[in-house]
């Protein structure tokens, strides 16, 4: 109980990932959806860092860096697109985005 093992971190990471998934599926506001994806990415980062620590290998941390870099780019591009969409439709509700309807 007192000894914190790798599994503790992994389960925490999984828990956060599940929360992120709930957000991804539940949110209808596009901005909120972005928040949820941030949670997903961060939960994975925890897992990477934990594995890196417990195996004494730096590769996990390297991956976490690149994940952060990707998250940053994603936010930049995603927000840009979001702004365009908002300018055009004055709405960022997911249910209103139905131009892909089959």
């Amino acid at each position, binding site marked *: 109980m007192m000894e914190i093992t790798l599994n503790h971190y992994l389960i925490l990471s999984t828990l956060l990932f599940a929360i992120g*998934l709930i957000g991804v*599926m539940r949110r209808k506001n596009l901005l909120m959806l972005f928040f949820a994806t941030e949670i997903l990415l961060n939960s994975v980062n925890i897992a990477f860092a934990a594995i890196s620590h417990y195996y004494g290998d730096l590769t996990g941390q390297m991956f976490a860096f690149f994940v952060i870099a990707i998250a940053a780019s994603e936010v930049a591009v995603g927000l840009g697109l979001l702004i365009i969409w908002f300018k055009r439709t004055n709405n960022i509700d997911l249910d209103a*985005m*139905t131009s892909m*309807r*089959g």
Partner: protein
Amino acid sequence: MMEMYLYLALFAPLAGSLFAALFGASPKTLWTGLITSGLLFTSFVSSVILFSYLLSGGEVIHVEMMTWMATGNLYIPFGFVVDEVSATMMIVVTTVSTVVHVYAIGYMDHDKGFNRFFSYLSAFVFSMMVLVMSDNFAGLFIGWEGVGLCSWLLIGFWYHKETATWAANEAFIMNRIADLGMLIGIFLIYWNTGSLQYDKVFAEVPYLDIDTVTMIGIFLFVGAMGKSAQFPLHTWLADAMEGPTPVSALIHAATMVTAGVYLVIRANPIYDLIPDVGYMIASLGAFVAIFAATMALVNRDMKRIIAYSTLSQLGYMFVAAGLGAYWVALFHLMAHAFFKALLFLGAGNVMHAMDDELDPVKMGGLRHAMKWTMVMMTLASVALAGIYPLAGFFSKDKILEVAFSGDHYILWGTLWVTAGLTAFYSFRLIMLAFFGEKRHEALGFHPHEAYKYVLWAMSPLAVLAVIAGWFEHEFVHFITHLLPNFEFHTHHVEMILIIVTSMIALGGIITAIMLYKNGPLSKKWEERPCYKVLINQYFIPQFYEEFFTKPYRELSRVLWKEVDMKIVDASVDGIANTIYGTGEKTRHMQDGNLSSMLRWMVIGLLILLTLAAAFSFGTSDTVQQALSDLGAI
């Protein structure tokens, strides 16, 4: 040098065919007919040069154009040979086809498919040349199928006519049945001798088991039966008269139907070893001769009468070939080609004059309008009847002598009676069509003579029908380089036989003239049962219809309704419907809403995770250990 002529003879018709095919879909252009005829004439001239080369003692020309198949032990080249037999066949084929080409320019004058017709006709000649010139059974088979295909195309040339397409299919299907036999024969040859080259096969055959050779001989003859329309595969030939008349003259009288005889002649080393099969062939030939001749007696369709006559004469040829007198068969084949083609072309003129009316009973007195046609047809009929000194006399008489010489008196008797019947039905046709009252006037026909150049085109055949028999001794000398000579034992009775045969032929002619002097016989004749049997072709077509076609149709219907629709189609449709239904149901997944798409994505992720979990569970060491422990227990 001679090789060049060989290739010229072979490929000139192909060139013509391809050339005409270029304009196949366009309306009539006279020069397609002229060019194909010209190329045919080139082929004819080349054949004559090759023939005279061989006649003057030249070597047999044997070329191998290129390799066709070479896999493992199988080696089949595109090889061609010009020896005495194929040279004779080439002369016959090119002569008749050149005449028919020129004739067809006139005959098909008003036809929409003029160019197409010449394309097919030249393609036929090419196939026939391949058939007779090939130096192996595979090449022969290609030619064999080629002529079958062209025959189908040409019988069904007027494809908008239901009867024509039906007849074309009948001919094609019957020939396929027979070709299966032939193919089996060829396989047997290859299986037992390891080669398909004539020379190798024939060198090998004497060392084979006699049963094997018998099988080969029978199967090859089955193929010959189909192509030469021997009983019981004879029905297609009479129906094939639906095709244009030049086609009937070329394919269904002079060349293609004699391919069966050619095959037997070509395979003479095989048939020499199996005289029993030969005797069977001869017996069948004699039967077909009289059988077809009786059907010709009463028929009221001009072309069908001639077609039955062709059948009957093919029977004669098979008698000679079956009894080992191969050169006699070839001789009759040649003579018959000339006068029968002439007869058909004459019939074509009459048909044209009578607006495609074929019933000779409705004609009568045509001699006034069509003098030259009448002369040529009479000439051909006299030749067919076998009256001295025309071509038919020499060849047919020789066949009777062959039968007599082998002490096959029943065969001889059959053929002797047939000779009388032949003379009778030939002159029945002549009398009904050209003499007597002008019955056609009452029916409103205005017959006219054919074009001058058409008549000129026919004249070589007329000349050949007269003189072809005069060169018997030269021919025997020439052909026996390759074919075995036949020992006649009839020198003591030769004159008597000739006289007896001529008597019955003359008797037949005189009877016909006397009976039909005043037009057709009274209706009373048509009430008689024997007439009924003959006009219905011994009820054989009906028999086939009842016992082969109808059960087959029923079987097909059952297979269609029960097997195809309920099993094959149903399963295929089932698959399609399942996929379609799945698509229809899962279409709602693509509702364009990002939220639900994400939800589906998570479901997909869940499935993947489950798989990964199952996989890792299955491959983990402890589980493997536990599983192997279980297995050990």
